[in-house]
């Protein structure tokens, strides 16, 4: 692998056209087909969702065995793979138009979808949402910080005793001392 590559000047770079290989395509021409891929297949192809082979294998289905290859040669494939559709569209004027239409429609849908989030993510909107989030977080932290660990209770000073002591007579236990609260709160 060449790792010591120094970039070529742009004009020199664009001069390389691989023209020696151009003749590999010289027999390519438009053909008449009796079978065409369905609208659904073409949509999947345009969206890059069409599989390489029916079993989603690593190797393209066209050359997997002789049977598959014969079907490709006959032009009547039982199940369209990505490669089948690509070669068909490349040589079928009708399907080229259909694919161009589907591609343009998909392109405009994607473009409008891209514009939508851009508008929502303008800086002032993001700033406003950020400020609201920070304020909410600060309010929660302040509330937790200031909240007392025990519920508030009225003061109970020594000068104002908050309990009283009464001696009661019980027929079973004799004289017992009972302590009552005189104000809410703790002793």
């Amino acid at each position, binding site marked *: 692998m060449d790792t010591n590559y120094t*970039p070529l000047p742009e004009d020199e770079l*664009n001069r*390389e056209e691989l023209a020696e290989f151009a003749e590999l395509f010289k027999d390519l021409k438009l053909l008449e087909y009796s079978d065409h891929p369905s609208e659904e297949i073409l949509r999947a192809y345009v969206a890059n969702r069409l599989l390489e082979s029916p079993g989603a294998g690593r190797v*393209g289905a066209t050359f997997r065995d002789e049977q598959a290859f014969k079907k490709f040669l006959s032009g009547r494939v039982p199940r369209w793979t990505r490669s089948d559709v*690509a070669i068909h569209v490349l040589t079928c004027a009708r399907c080229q138009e259909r694919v161009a239409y589907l591609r343009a429609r998909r392109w405009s849908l994607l473009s409008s979808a891209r514009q939508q989030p851009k508008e929502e993510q303008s800086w002032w909107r993001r700033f406003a949402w950020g400020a609201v989030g920070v304020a909410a977080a600060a309010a929660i932290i302040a509330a937790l910080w200031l909240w007392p660990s025990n519920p508030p209770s009225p003061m109970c000073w020594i000068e104002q005793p908050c309990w009283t002591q009464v001696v009661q007579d019980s027929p079973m236990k004799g004289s017992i001392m009972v302590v009552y609260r005189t104000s809410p709160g703790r002793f």
Partner: protein
Amino acid sequence: MEIRIELARLAYAENILRCTNEPPEMVEDLLSLDGELEKARRWFVFAEAKRRFDPNVVRGLLVYLFSHYASSEFDPRKREQLVREINEGRVRMRDLTIERLAGTRLSWEHIFRLVGRQFNPTREKEKIKELYTQLYASASATTIPRTEVSYGH
């Protein structure tokens, strides 16, 4: 029949680009059913080069070839869409097809972006031509030499 085999050879070339190709020795008979073994070999050398050299660079050369020669008509709208997807990094080489590239006339800058690095296209082209000479130029070379196959890229 002949034209369908011609298309099969193009389909094979497309599979080389997406790394879904069978090894050349497995499809040699199928792709030369019309007697055009030389034409098949012109594509096989790319598959062989992918085994021996940097596979992504070889794939980059194929992208350029398809983009410039698979259609004689320039399609500016198709090019605009593809170039935008390349610049935004939303398309990879394994997503491309020969039809998607036909008529787009990509520049080498676009190819480098797809490949992920710069390379010298003239030097890489010469390496492929040398490999072709090495593999097929001698009259005794009737079959493609078998080498270890690795498609793990």
